[in-house]
């Protein structure tokens, strides 16, 4: 069964809410859905696609595999750290490794990334130290890295906002006459936000070099994608005047190929592209979420058979691109990464209290100065008087 047909079934099963019978009134002929772009079947067979192909060395293929494995390892470590109370929250990317590594590895260094809060795999590709990603989930900061060091913007929590920042950034790239591209990540839920629609409009009108990369993991917390759209999301682009393409989001090769092609299109000055990576959120929305309240285990199980990592592993093995030693070494490397992250998080200090007043403004603000001084004096009063007991 293809990914596509599962989705179609699901739409039928879930659609409800409107009292009148919705007849299949959308003219299917007009924008007939092209096939899902796939280069690697769930069984790990390499297949061809007329528009997208890719030729990777064994080294590169192993590299993609390594990225996915280490990303997953980091992710599961973070989930564990949340359970242990080291993090307040964690948003797992489990199941979305191919979408993130495939798209992330399509980028050039000078490209710029605007993530949501779940792009740990893309961050990995950009060279952001994984530990840095944990700061906000631990509650020591709202974003612990310098976006310009790796051209990887801070995580954005307000759904959809960053797509406009990406568009503006891309407008700036075009103004500079540079041939870099920009990529904006967002989810299926985010597709409903007005800001995302406005980013489509602005990017089309200004022909901005931006790729909109939608990870349709089929859930927005408890809501299935049918609560956001009644047609596949990639089709949205066409009505704004730029191409949309749906790629198998659990196929790292296809994600790489499709994203690379979209980025090149942007570099050539042909404007935006929408990529819908059709994937699945295998875990909970975040560690605060309980998916048993709203979705059946079978659905998840069906998707496990399409696991992006197992898929590439099967191919690597069949094609003889990787041997047991490689997998063993990677296992060790994973453990080392897990350990490093664990230790780094535990060693992560709480911020100084005075940090509340830092960076509110770049050029200062009289009230902040006043409040900072009052706060310092107030804190000092405890030190002086030993009033701590009163707490």
């Amino acid at each position, binding site marked *: 069964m293809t990914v596509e047909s599962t989705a179609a079934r699901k739409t039928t099963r879930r659609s409800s809410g409107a009292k009148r019978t919705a007849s299949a009134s959308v003219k299917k002929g007009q924008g007939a859905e092209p096939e899902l772009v796939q280069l690697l079947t769930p069984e790990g067979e390499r297949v061809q696609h007329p528009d997208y192909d890719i030729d990777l060395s064994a080294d590169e293929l192993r590299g993609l595999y390594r990225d996915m494995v280490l990303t997953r390892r980091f992710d599961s470590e973070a989930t564990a750290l949340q359970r242990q109370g080291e993090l307040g929250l964690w948003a797992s990317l489990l199941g979305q490794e191919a979408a993130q590594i495939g798209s992330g590895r399509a980028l050039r260094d000078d490209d710029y990334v605007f993530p949501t809060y779940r792009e740990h795999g893309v961050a990995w590709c950009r060279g952001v130290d994984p530990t840095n990603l944990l700061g906000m989930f631990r509650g020591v900061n709202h974003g612990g890295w310098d976006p310009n060091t790796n051209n990887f913007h801070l995580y954005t929590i307000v759904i959809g906002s960053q797509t406009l920042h990406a568009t503006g950034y891309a407008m700036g790239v075009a103004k500079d006459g540079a041939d870099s591209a920009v990529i904006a990540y967002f989810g299926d839920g985010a597709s409903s936000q007005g800001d995302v629609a406005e980013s489509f409009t602005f990017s089309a009108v200004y022909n901005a070099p931006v790729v909109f990369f939608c990870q349709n993991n089929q859930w927005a*917390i*408890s809501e299935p994608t049918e609560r956001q759209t009644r047609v596949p999301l990639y089709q949205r682009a066409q009505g704004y005047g730029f191409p949309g393409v749906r790629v198998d989001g659990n196929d790292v090769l296809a994600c790489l190929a499709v994203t690379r092609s979209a980025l090149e299109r942007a570099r050539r000055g042909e404007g935006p592209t929408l990529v819908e990576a059709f994937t699945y959120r295998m875990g909970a929305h975040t560690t605060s979420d309980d998916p048993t309240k709203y979705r059946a285990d079978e659905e998840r199980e069906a998707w496990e058979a399409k696991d992006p990592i197992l898929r590439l592993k099967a191919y690597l093995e069949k094609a003889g691109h990787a041997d047991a030693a490689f997998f063993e070494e990677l296992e060790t490397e994973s453990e080392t990464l897990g350990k490093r992250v664990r230790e780094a998080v535990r060693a992560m200090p709480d911020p100084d209290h005075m940090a509340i007043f830092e960076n509110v403004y770049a050029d200062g603000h009289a009230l902040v100065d006043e409040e900072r001084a009052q706060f310092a004096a107030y804190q000092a009063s405890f030190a002086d008087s030993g009033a701590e007991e009163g707490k």
Partner: protein
Amino acid sequence: MAVQKLPLAKALNESLRKALETDPKVLIMGEDVGKLGGVFRVTDGLQKDFGEDRVIDTPLAESGIVGTAIGLALRGYRPVVEIQFDGFVFPAYDQIVTQLAKMHARALGKIKLPVVVRIPYGGGIGAVEHHSESPEALFAHVAGLKVVSPSNSSDAYWMLQQAIQSDDPVIFFEPKRRYWDKGEVDTEAIPGELHKARVTRQGTDLTLAAYGPMVKVCLEAAAAAQEEGKSVEVLDLRSMSPIDFDAIQTSVEKTRRLVVVHEAPVFYGSGAEIAARITERCFYHLEAPVLRVGGYHAPYPPARLEEEYLPGLDRVLDAVDRSLAY
């Protein structure tokens, strides 16, 4: 049984259930309010019992949620909308401020907008950015909206009933860190008026005025002050628009000292309005300037700093002392 001990979130749930039962025009709308029952479970079980037609999972778009709720209200429904967290109300701000608040006046009273916008607000739960804010002043400044916040389970139950029954749009701020606090709810009591404050603790030396999550802190502060021989009155304001200035004035004419406490930043916050108006009303009664305890002029900080950012017992007591020192 009419009297039950319920966590505040459960009291809200019971109140919504009651409203759905009583009035077929009442609808619940929002992100994840259906099967999941909301991220705080305030709507738990309601979709199961009242169906998808009345408890509606919406697309992820707050402007759309409030905008369609307005349309539903125009059609005769009474939508109760959930905004998932305080920090996510802003995409809906335009619909709330330019449409929801003004449409009744625009129509010279010919149409009514009985929409309730429920917003879990405030900090203290160790959350990430945008999940701990207190934006009530940004709504109270806007004519056409009513803004309220319960501090306990009984008020949660009754004030939500009253908000839903109101023909005006009501922004209903729920003190999320008190969701799990239990309190008695008498579902057959006769509730006080929605916009009247309540004296929660009597006192003679100073008045503490607060609402929502800070009422509990003020009660604790009053108890602590008592041990030092200071008699502190605590007013639960319950409503930020309108504000029950008469009740504050009555209290201040007795105690002659007022400290206002809220989580929201002090600068341009509700404490400013209260201080300004009460000073005008009680100019010759006040022995000390009205003092304000609240958030700093800074974005809500990361969780590991929130204890320092939020007004706690010590900061309230410090303000009490400063006021009494005048």
